[in-house]
C-alpha cells in the first residue's frame, strides 16, 4: 500500500487539472497482505488495461518515471499528436477515399462478379476461392489498420478507447452499404471523439451514414411521407432497398436507448422507443449525391408532438428535436451509469464493483461527460488498483494478439494476415453482427478451440512463422545457453516477475533437451505467450 500511495502522490503533485481525492485513504483500509503493489506491478497493470500491453523495456521505464506521468500524458489532449503512429500507419488508399468512391468500386466489383457468375452458371462444381475481391481487400486494409494502430501507437489509451467506442457503437462491414461507410465512420466519427465529450460522440454516431444505415434509421419516415421527387439510390445495387420506406423503423431508436445510452434497465417504455423513432424521422443520408453524408429530410419528419421519458418535444422543431433528445439522453443519469459501468467492465473487471462506477458517474456529472475525466476517475479509484482486479480479466483475441506482438517487439506488416489471425480466434474486426458489439466477459472468449488457437498463435509468433509479422527476439532478450537466465528475462519482460512456478517448470522441462539456444529461446517465449498468465490482464 505504501508504495502505491507514494507513487500516486509523486505523480499528482502539482497536478491541478486532475480532480478527485487520492485513493490512498481508501486503499489503506485494504489489509490483504498480498496486495503490495510494486512500481513494476502497477506499471504492468496500467499497460495491460490502458494500453495493449507493454513493449520490451516499457515496464521498467514506466516504473521509473511513474505511472501517473504516463496516464497524464495519455489524457493530456483529446486529439493527441501521435508521431509513432504517423510513422507506422500506412497511407492506405482507403483512408483517402470518400464513401462515394468506395461505393463506386464495389459497384464495379459487383458487376464483374455478376458477369463472372453468368459465365460460370453452368459449371458443375461451385466456384473455389479466387483471389481476394476488391471488397475483401479493402475490408482487410481497414482491419489491418486497427492492428497496426493498436500495436504501434504511443497514445495507447486513445487506441483502446477507439476500440471501446467502435464496439459500443457497433456497425458491421458486411451489411450492404456499410462496406463503403465504415471506413469514414472510424476515421471521422469515432477517432476524433473517442476522448472528447460523450454527447458529441453520441451525436456524431447518430448523424453518421454508417449508423443510419446499419440500424435502418435512414429508412425511417413519418407514415405516409413521400420524398419530393422519387430519387433512387442511384447506381449502387441494393435489392433490399427497392421499396420506398413506408413508415417509422424503430430499430435505431431501440438500440439507441438500450445499448448506446440508457441501458436495458434504463426505465424507458415501448412508447418511448416509438417516440424516439418519430423524433429521428428525417435523419438520413444525402441521396442526391448518392452515398453522401448526413442529411436531414424535412419531408420525412414526423410533425406531431412527442413525449420521451416524460419530456415534451413540441411539434414542428424538425431536426432540433433530435439534437435536443440526444443531449437529453447523453446526460441522463441512467446513461451515465450504464456507460460508466461498461467502461469499468473494460478497465477494471468483468463485473465491476460499485465504487469505481460511482466515481466515474460523479466525474461524468462534474465534467458534463468529458470522457477523459471519467477515465481518470476510474483509474484513480481504489477498485482499479485492488489486488482482486489485477489479472482478473481475460484478454479478448484482439488484446491477446496485440499484447503478444508488443511484448516481443513483433511488427505487423500491411497485409491483413494478423487481422485474419484475430478473426480465427473469434473476433473478426468490424464484423460483429449484433449491435451490442463484442462481449467483455471471459465466458464469451474462453473455449477449448479458441484456446488451442491462441497457443498455436503464440508458438508461431515467437518462432517467426506467423504470417504477416516480423519478429526479432533480440529486442526481448539475447540468446543464451543459460536457460535459467533466459526464463528470468522472459518472466521480467512479460510478467514483471510474476510468472507462476508451474509455467516456469513446464517451460524448463521442455528446454532440457533443446540443445540449440536460439530454438530454445523461441520455444520458451512461445510457451510463455501461450501460458495461462499471458491470457490474463
Amino acid at each position, binding site marked *: 500500500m505504501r508504495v502505491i500511495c507514494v507513487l500516486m502522490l509523486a505523480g499528482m503533485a502539482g497536478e491541478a487539472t486532475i480532480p478527485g481525492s487520492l485513493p490512498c485513504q481508501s486503499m489503506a483500509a485494504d489489509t490483504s497482505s498480498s496486495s503490495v503493489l510494486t512500481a513494476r506491478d502497477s506499471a504492468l497493470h496500467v499497460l495491460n488495461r490502458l494500453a495493449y500491453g507493454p513493449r520490451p523495456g516499457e515496464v521498467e521505464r514506466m516504473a521509473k518515471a511513474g505511472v501517473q506521468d504516463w496516464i497524464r500524458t495519455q489524457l493530456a489532449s483529446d486529439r493527441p499528436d501521435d508521431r509513432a503512429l504517423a510513422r507506422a500507419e500506412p497511407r492506405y488508399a482507403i483512408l483517402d477515399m470518400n464513401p462515394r468512391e468506395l461505393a463506386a468500386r464495389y459497384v464495379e466489383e459487383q458487376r464483374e462478379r455478376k458477369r463472372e457468375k453468368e459465365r460460370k*452458371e453452368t459449371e458443375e462444381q461451385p466456384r473455389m476461392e479466387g483471389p481476394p475481391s476488391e471488397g475483401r481487400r479493402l475490408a482487410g486494409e481497414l482491419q489491418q489498420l486497427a492492428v497496426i494502430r493498436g500495436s504501434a501507437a504511443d497514445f495507447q489509451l486513445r487506441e483502446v478507447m477507439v476500440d471501446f467506442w467502435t464496439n459500443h457503437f457497433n456497425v458491421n462491414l458486411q451489411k450492404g452499404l456499410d462496406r463503403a461507410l465504415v471506413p469514414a465512420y472510424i476515421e471521422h466519427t469515432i477517432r476524433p471523439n473517442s476522448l472528447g465529450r460523450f454527447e458529441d460522440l453520441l451525436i456524431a454516431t447518430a448523424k453518421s451514414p454508417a449508423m443510419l444505415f446499419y440500424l435502418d434509421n435512414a429508412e425511417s419516415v413519418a407514415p405516409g411521407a413521400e420524398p419530393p421527387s422519387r430519387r433512387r439510390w442511384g447506381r449502387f445495387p441494393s435489392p433490399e432497398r427497392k421499396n420506398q420506406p413506408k413508415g417509422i423503423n424503430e430499430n435505431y431508436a431501440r438500440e439507441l436507448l438500450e445499448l448506446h445510452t440508457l441501458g436495458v434497465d434504463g426505465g424507458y417504455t415501448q412508447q418511448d422507443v416509438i417516440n424516439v423513432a418519430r423524433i429521428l424521422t428525417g435523419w438520413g443520408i444525402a441521396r442526391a449525391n448518392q452515398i453522401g453524408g448526413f442529411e436531414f429530410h424535412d419531408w420525412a419528419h414526423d410533425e406531431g408532438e412527442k413525449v420521451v421519458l416524460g419530456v415534451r418535444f413540441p411539434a414542428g422543431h424538425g431536426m432540433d428535436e433530435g439534437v435536443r433528445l440526444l443531449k437529453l439522453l447523453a446526460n441522463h443519469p441512467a446513461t451515465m451509469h450504464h456507460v460508466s459501468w461498461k467502461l469499468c467492465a473494460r478497465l477494471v473487471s468483468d*463485473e465491476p464493483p460499485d465504487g469505481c462506477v460511482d466515481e466515474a458517474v460523479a466525474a461524468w456529472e462534474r465534467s458534463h461527460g468529458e470522457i477523459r475525466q471519467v477515465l481518470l476517475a476510474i483509474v484513480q479509484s481504489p477498485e482499479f488498483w485492488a489486488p482482486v482486479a489485477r489479472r482478473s480479466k481475460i484478454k479478448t483475441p484482439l488484446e491477446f494478439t496485440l499484447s503478444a506482438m508488443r511484448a516481443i517487439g513483433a511488427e505487423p506488416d500491411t497485409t491483413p494476415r494478423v487481422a485474419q489471425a484475430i478473426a480465427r480466434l473469434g473476433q473478426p474486426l468490424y464484423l460483429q453482427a449484433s449491435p451490442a458489439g463484442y462481449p467483455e466477459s471471459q465466458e464469451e472468449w474462453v473455449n477449448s478451440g479458441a484456446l488451442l488457437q491462441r497457443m498455436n498463435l503464440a508458438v508461431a509468433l515467437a518462432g517467426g512463422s506467423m504470417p504477416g509479422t516480423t519478429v526479432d527476439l533480440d529486442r526481448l532478450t539475447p540468446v543464451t545457453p543459460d536457460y535459467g537466465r533466459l526464463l528470468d528475462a522472459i518472466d521480467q519482460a512479460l510478467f514483471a516477475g510474476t510468472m507462476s512456478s508451474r509455467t516456469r517448470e*513446464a517451460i524448463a522441462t521442455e528446454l532440457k533437451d533443446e540443445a540449440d539456444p536460439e530454438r530454445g529461446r523461441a520455444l520458451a517465449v*512461445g510457451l510463455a505467450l501461450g501460458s495461462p498468465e499471458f491470457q490474463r490482464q
Partner: protein
Amino acid sequence: MEITRRVFLRAGGLALCSFGLDPLFLNRAAYARRAPITGRSGQPILICLFQRGAVDGLNMIVPHGDALYYRERPRIAVPRQEVVDLNGYFGLHPSLGPLKPWWDNGSLGVTHAVGSPDGSRSHFDAQDYMETGTPGRKSTPDGWLNRYCSHQREHDETPFRSVAFGPELPRILSGSAPSLAIADLHAFGIRAGSRPASDKIARAFEAMYEGAQTGLLATSAQEGFEAVRMLKSVDPTRYSPENGADYPRSPLGRTLLQIAQLIKADLGLEIAFADVGGWDTHVNQGAGDGQLANRLRDLSQALVALATDLGDRMADVVVLTMSEFGRTVRENGSAGTDHGHATAMLVLGGPVRGGKVLGRWPGLDPANRFEGRDLAVTTDFRDLFGEILARHLGGTGLSGVFPDHELSPARFPGVIKS
C-alpha cells in the same frame, strides 16, 4: 456464492420459469420423445445446414400442381415432366431426385411455407434473426443452438458436443456454452511443424494449464487437450466411407464426410453445424438445369452420401436445412428471383416423420401472399426448430432457448415421430 447481475439476467428468465411456472416444464412428459441418452452410440444428433443467401423454396420443393406457379415463372419453373413427384401436388426438384428413396422409406420430410415472423428482406438481418432465434430483436447476444446447450445440462459435456465446421464460430453457436469451430478435423490441435515438436509443445501447455489457478482457462484447456487426444485415437486421416458412399468433392461434401467421421468416432457429438452457400439466385437461376440445379445437386449428393455412409446410425440423426427467407413467387426481369419471405426446409433422418410435406400451405394466390408478392409464412421457424430440440434431442425447458416465443406442441409442424 455470489450471483452476478449478468448471470442472473442471463439465467434468470429460465430459472423463474423452470420452478413450475413454465407450461413447458409441466408438459415435459408430453414433449420429450425419450429421455436424453447420455451414452455414446444411440445418442440423438442434430446436423444443421444453413443455406446462406436464401434458397428458392418454390423451386426446391415445387408446387407443380398449381398452375399459378407456371404462370408466374415462365422461364424458370421446373417443367412438370421433370419434377420428381411426391404427392401429386408437390415434387422434388430433379436435382434432389437421388433423395427420393429416403422420402419413400419415410425418413425425408419437408416443411413448406416456413420462415420468420419478421418481414425483413435483408440477408444480414434475417440470418441474424434465424441464428439468434429472436426475430426482430437485434441485440440478442447469443445463438439459439448455444442457448440450447447451456440450458440443457443433462447431456455429457464432451468437447465435441457442439461443433461448427468452418474457421469461425457462427452466431447460431456463439454464447456461453463451449462450442468448437473446426475448419478441418485433420488440423485440429497444436500445430508446430513436425509431429514430435507439436507433441512436445502440447505437453508443456497441458502441464501449465493443468493446475492453473484459473478456473475457466484450466477447464477449457483441459477440454481442448482431451479433444485432441480423442481425435488422435480415432485418427481422422484414415477414414474411408462405408457402404460405398460417394461424397461430392465440394466444400459441403467434405464437411459432411467429416461430420460422419465425428459421429462414428462416438465422441459425444450432439449438434453439428455447417454453412452451404450459393443460393442468392437473382440472375439466370435456371429451371430443371442451371445454377440452382447445380447447387441442389451438390446438396442431394452430399446428403445421400452421408445417409449411405452412416447406414444404421441414421436412426439417431436428424439433418435440418434452413435458410433466412425464400424468394419471390414471380420471376424477375433477369430470369431469377428476388428476396421473398417463406421457404421450404428439409428434415432427413431415422427419427423423421417423413414422406410428408408438412406445414399449412398458404397457396400462391396473390391475395394470400405476404405483402402481395411472396409466399406467406405459416410455420414460424422457431416451432420447427423447437420441435426438433424437444422431440429429437429430448430438450426440456426450452423457453430460454426461444425467449418471447412460447413453444406449444400444437404448433409443431410434426416432423419428428412421436
